[in-house]
């Protein structure tokens, strides 16, 4: 009796323990990937990050063409931008890398997980299309070249996107209504903004105009700090570059935007505009959604006079016809024309880091065939803009026309729903001409007015190339220092803009900024080291 009940206990404990052990196991198992399909053809697993997934990649004719080219099956996994942002770190730690990843990883990831990225340099013979791409586009090659190894492949979306990513716009209709000239200097801009504020340019009888609208201070896309270009300092506010971390080069010397006298001028200017009520006082505290409601409003009455963004159509929606690009301003009237620069972000706009391969991929030959096919002209066009002939027609001689009726769905003015768009891997050469690529046409139109200023930029001497990539260790130092520097400096600059006091406070700010403990000089030294190496090449 006693004995049997004891065994009962043991059994029960064992059963419970076993059940508990099974739970996590069951959760992990079950997603094994077969290497070949039933028909004996290899399977290639591709994960792509997309911003819309209404139409799945596997349903696009593009996939069938790829499969024909590689004589294999492709299993797509699509992941949204948001989901990827949350899963990325965990997936990498878990070693969960797909055979082929599109738009998933950047160079920081490569330096952190070097063993999880295939070195393409050993496979270049199997990738003639990529080889040709690198010959045609040395910048793209340099972006991924790591001592002769390639751990990522870049994409090139063609000449339609060889533009600065940031433009400043002004409401031409308002200028006309008030009989004003296009401003060319900061002072003239201020006068125009004052007129916008006081003279009811939108004619609705209400003082609801927002003369100038800006986003948060920062070194990223569409930052109001692009006004630094008016002072002769070049910015490159896109992607992951020295500039987006706050560094620039002048006469071969790397410097920080934070510590520049020119920064003081820009901040003082914005502070003045804000104190005069020309920029909304709640700019730095409001919800992001309010920005769009002020620039686009109801699509009928314009509320915004000047703002900074990608293209006028993107920034103002239905009000696009009222706006034109404001040509880069001079800081003061007496400065020579050639000192006016503009945001030199065309490389980051045209090229992107996209394609990675897991070195443990089983069907490497098939993977290489897929990749080579992707970088061919026709499949590049199809990957970005949509399948031929369903959405895009091949007119011959490298000209392709997008059928906007079919391709632009869900109210979008691009092909992100029915194609991979900017998440594609491929190379669209200059011989290709795209008709009806609305996004490119709009941003190119917005870019025209900046071309003179962009021509003033000496890319060799005034821009830290975007293809410089520090080592893992240096990146950590840079990042840790940057967290502390940004925390202090961005806060100070925002406070200066909001509450004034630049003139009195600047010296004190500089003193704290350059304190050794903050690590600004350490970061400058690191970038200087890499810049010198890059120039020496």
């Amino acid at each position, binding site marked *: 009796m006693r004995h049997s009940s004891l065994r009962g206990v043991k059994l029960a404990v064992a059963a419970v323990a076993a059940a508990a052990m099974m739970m996590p196991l069951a959760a992990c198992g079950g997603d094994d990937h077969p290497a070949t399909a039933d028909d004996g053809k290899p399977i290639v697993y591709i994960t792509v990050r997309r911003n819309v997934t209404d139409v799945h990649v596997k349903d696009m004719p593009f996939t069938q063409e790829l499969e024909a080219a590689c004589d294999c099956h492709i299993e797509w996994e699509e992941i949204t931008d948001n989901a990827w942002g949350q899963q990325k770190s965990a997936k990498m730690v878990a070693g969960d890398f797909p055979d082929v990843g599109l738009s998933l990883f950047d160079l920081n990831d490569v330096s952190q997980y070097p063993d999880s990225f295939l070195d393409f340099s050993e496979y270049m013979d199997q990738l003639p299309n990529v080889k040709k791409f690198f010959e045609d586009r040395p910048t793209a090659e340099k972006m991924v070249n790591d001592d002769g190894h390639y751990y990522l492949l870049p994409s090139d979306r063609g000449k339609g996107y060889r533009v600065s990513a940031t433009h400043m716009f002004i409401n031409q209709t308002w200028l006309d209504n008030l009989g004003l000239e296009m401003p060319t200097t900061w002072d003239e801009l201020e006068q125009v903004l004052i007129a916008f504020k006081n003279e009811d340019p939108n004619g609705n009888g209400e003082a609801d105009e927002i003369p100038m609208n800006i986003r948060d201070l920062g070194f990223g896309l569409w930052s109001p700090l692009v006004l630094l270009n008016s002072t002769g300092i070049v910015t490159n506010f896109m992607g992951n570059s020295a500039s987006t971390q706050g560094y620039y080069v002048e006469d071969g010397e790397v410097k920080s935007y934070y510590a520049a006298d020119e920064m003081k001028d820009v901040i003082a200017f914005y502070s003045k505009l804000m104190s005069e009520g020309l920029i909304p006082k709640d700019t730095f505290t409001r919800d992001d959604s309010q920005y769009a409601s002020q620039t686009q409003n109801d699509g009928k009455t314009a509320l915004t006079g000047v703002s900074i963004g990608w293209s006028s159509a993107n920034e103002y929606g239905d009000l696009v016809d009222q706006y034109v690009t404001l040509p880069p301003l001079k800081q003061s009237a007496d400065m020579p024309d050639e000192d006016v620069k503009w945001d030199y972000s065309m490389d980051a706009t045209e090229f992107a880091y996209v394609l990675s391969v897991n070195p443990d991929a089983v069907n490497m030959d098939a993977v290489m065939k897929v990749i080579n096919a992707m970088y061919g002209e026709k499949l590049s066009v199809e990957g970005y803009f949509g399948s031929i002939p369903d959405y895009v027609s091949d007119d011959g001689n490298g000209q392709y026309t997008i059928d906007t009726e079919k391709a632009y769905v869900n109210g979008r003015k691009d092909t992100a729903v029915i194609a991979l768009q900017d998440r594609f891997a491929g190379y669209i050469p200059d011989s290709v001409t795209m008709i009806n690529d609305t996004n490119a046409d709009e941003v190119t139109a917005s870019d025209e007015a900046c071309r003179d200023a962009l021509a003033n930029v000496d890319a060799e001497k005034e821009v830290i190339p975007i293809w410089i990539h520090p080592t893992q260790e240096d990146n950590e130092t840079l*990042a840790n220092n940057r967290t502390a520097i940004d925390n202090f400096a961005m806060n100070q600059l925002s406070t200066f803009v909001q509450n004034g006091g630049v003139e009195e406070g600047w010296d004190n700010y500089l003193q704290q900024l350059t304190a050794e403990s903050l690590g600004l000089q350490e970061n400058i030294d690191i970038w200087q080291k890499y810049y010198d190496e890059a120039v020496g090449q």
Partner: protein
Amino acid sequence: MATHMQSASVAVPGGSVSSNRPKPGFMSRLAYHLQRYWQLWILVAPGLIFMFLFAYVPMWGIQLAFREFEPSKGLTGGDWVGFKYFIQFFQSPLFGQIMWNTVRISLWTLVMGFIFPIILALLINQIGSKKVKGFVQTVTYMPHFISVVVIVSMLNIFLSPGSGIIGRFFGDTSLMGNSGAITAVYWISEVWQHCGWNCIIYLAALSGVDTSLYEAAKMDGASRLQLIRYVDLPAIMPTCTILLIMQMGSVLNVGFDKIYLMQNTLNQTATEVISTYTYKIGILGGQFEYSTAIGLFNTVINFLFLMIANGISKKVNDASIF
């Protein structure tokens, strides 16, 4: 806790144990114990297994705080670097600011979030009509169910200068951008949201007060305030102590989501706390070892606070959680 265990073991059915046999070995004692109480062990088994799997097993990963993280070698495969990341955190120029922000915001929230529910419970308890009482209770605990994202959006709207119902009284800049006011914005909104919910437990304690105590006190001529002071407060005091001790365990825990959502460039010198810093360094920057070290430091401090509060309370008024 201790008294529960005793009463449980007393309640187990079974005959008396002979006291004069020789002391048996450990294994046989264990077998005997299991044979007698195996039902109880089965009862707690799911909880124990859960705790072991999800609280103790993952603790193996704590050693990451002392190692160089190398993804290819797994969480525990990197080189041992000792206290490198702790020292790095202590020497970081942000260390002082982060600690001060964390302690300031969490202490304000903790103290105010402790006092106000008690006051509210005592007030609600004074309401005579059951209907009114139920209505007030429902209205006060409703905000508890609003998600943090919505709360922060509401704060933004309430405080927007010119048009917000509160913002219009504070000039042309939003309090959300005022590093001096952000702590108050944080704890007041926190108290407003959770006060009603947190007072429920006190109301439960108050409803258990013997009505004869009130009658006796009234006979002695006690006023309303004196009733609260001499009957209600002592009745809920043990509950208060336990809750306070438990809250002390999270003294360095400013919840991540709310403060992160409230952060902007104007107030970030006052809102950068341990959790947001860990997020920026660890998740965004990918430095898992560094953020693990910061997290471990945070936990150790919390644990110390919990122990100290528990010890003091044990000495002073004999109420403690262990």
